[in-house]
């Protein structure tokens, strides 16, 4: 059916693509930690982080529009969380009147929204850059070899493999439903959609049983054997330590 990619562009070639996944995980994790621990009113530091990300984007050879579009998925979440914050009264904070029902916008609230937004944004850009420059299998291998719990790695690996199959199944079901002239009242829709979700769940459950049979047939005894064969070059180590040093300098000195 449809060919969907989570890690589209991850097979391209660039400096960032070529770096060992563990080094990349380390670098982007460092940036996230630095960003999260920075006070929100420290403009120059955030500007430096953005410059850092722009440099990474340049090194990654990814289309900037793609990275930006992917990063914007956080907007609804942040908006949902932050929309009311500026209106919540805070003692000792300056405010301006909205002129509507006595509502006031508080400066400290605005600062809080900015804080949430900029940190979430930096985090998502980091994740986008990491996943778009590393094939998913390599990424899992990377996380596995730096000690992420095996159960997470296995779960993520199965999810990556079967997400699209389940999506395809749902789309096929929707096609079959629509082909039979699906229409009518809203309440009727809810019932039908409920049945579809139930069917999808049962099908996935049965598929899981068949997959398990296929695994057991090939000698699976409860332990997934993954052998990471990642080899870090001296350049990878240099890249990771160099960029991390730059980030720490930005965080401390500016």
């Amino acid at each position, binding site marked *: 059916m449809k060919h969907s990619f989570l890690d589209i562009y991850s097979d391209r070639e660039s400096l960032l693509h070529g770096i060992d996944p563990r080094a990349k995980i380390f670098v982007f994790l460092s940036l996230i930690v630095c960003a999260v621990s920075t006070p929100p009113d420290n403009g120059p530091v955030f500007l430096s982080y953005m410059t850092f990300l722009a440099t990474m984007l340049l090194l990654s050879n990814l289309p900037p529009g793609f990275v930006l579009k992917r990063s914007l998925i956080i907007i609804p979440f942040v908006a949902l969380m932050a929309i009311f914050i500026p209106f919540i009264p805070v003692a000792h904070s300056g405010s301006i009147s909205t002129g509507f029902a006595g509502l006031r916008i508080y400066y400290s609230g605005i600062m809080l929204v900015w804080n949430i937004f900029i940190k979430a944004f930096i985090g998502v850009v980091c994740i986008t850059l990491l996943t778009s420059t590393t094939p998913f299998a390599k990424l899992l291998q990377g996380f596995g070899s730096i000690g992420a719990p095996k159960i997470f790695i296995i779960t993520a690996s199965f999810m990556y493999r079967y997400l699209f199959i389940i999506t395809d199944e749902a789309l096929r079901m929707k096609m079959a439903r629509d082909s039979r002239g699906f229409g009518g009242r809203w309440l009727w829709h809810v019932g039908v959609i409920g049945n579809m979700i139930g069917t999808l769940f049962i099908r996935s459950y049965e598929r899981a049983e068949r997959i398990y049979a296929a695994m057991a*047939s090939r000698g699976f005894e409860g332990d997934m054997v993954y*052998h990471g064969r990642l080899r870090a070059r001296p350049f990878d180590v240099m890249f990771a330590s160099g960029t991390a040093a730059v980030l720490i300098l930005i965080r401390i000195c500016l």
Partner: protein
Amino acid sequence: MNSENIAIQINDLHYAYPDGNTALNGINLSIKENENIALIGHNGAGKSTLILHLNGILSGSGTIRIFNMEVNKGNLKEIRRTVGIVFQDPEDQLFCPTVYEDVAFGPRNMGMSENEVDKRVKETLSNLGLTGFEKRSAHHLSFGEKKRVSIATVLSMSPRIMVFDEPTANLDPAAQQALMETIKSFNCTKIIVTQDMPAAAELCERLIIMNKGVIAADGKTLDILSNDELLTQNGLSFKHYCKICKIISGMKS
């Protein structure tokens, strides 16, 4: 007959699903090493249930011996190394992020060293004409390619018995032909579960019909396929297919 040469020996096998449905109702069967067996029967006849018993995924009452080794909980590892099953739906068979990982899954579970695994995977992929597929994700393969990779995942364990569940189903005619040639080239005991009579005739000298959980017929493939009464009794007549063949050959001559 020398018992050494018997690949599979099944005595009085019964199995009922947890919901009470009887799937196997007294199966007795003996298969020699290097025999090619076609296992046919209408939907729900018990074919898939039977093959799941061959490597101990399901266990009913009765005994199954694989190369004179009884299938029981203690020797499942050895049994599963000996009996490889290629399941019908490649989406179930291929569960790893990449083709390489999938083909390496069996050999790794067998406890091979990483060098041996690597050698095995490359050999198997090259045997099946799949060199260069190592890093691909199963999701982005065509159905025919998925089917071949599924076979590779089992072949990499070098099983002495290979079981194929509906290998030609859903493939286009050219891919069917290619796959049959591949299966033919394997040098081991083969059991092919199929609804595809021409494939059965081409690949197997012996044919077994299952019906309602028992073996309804067992004999030479061409003898059984020419016995239309027997096929009709078991809901397997393929007269319509022969009719088309006759019409086509009439048009040609």
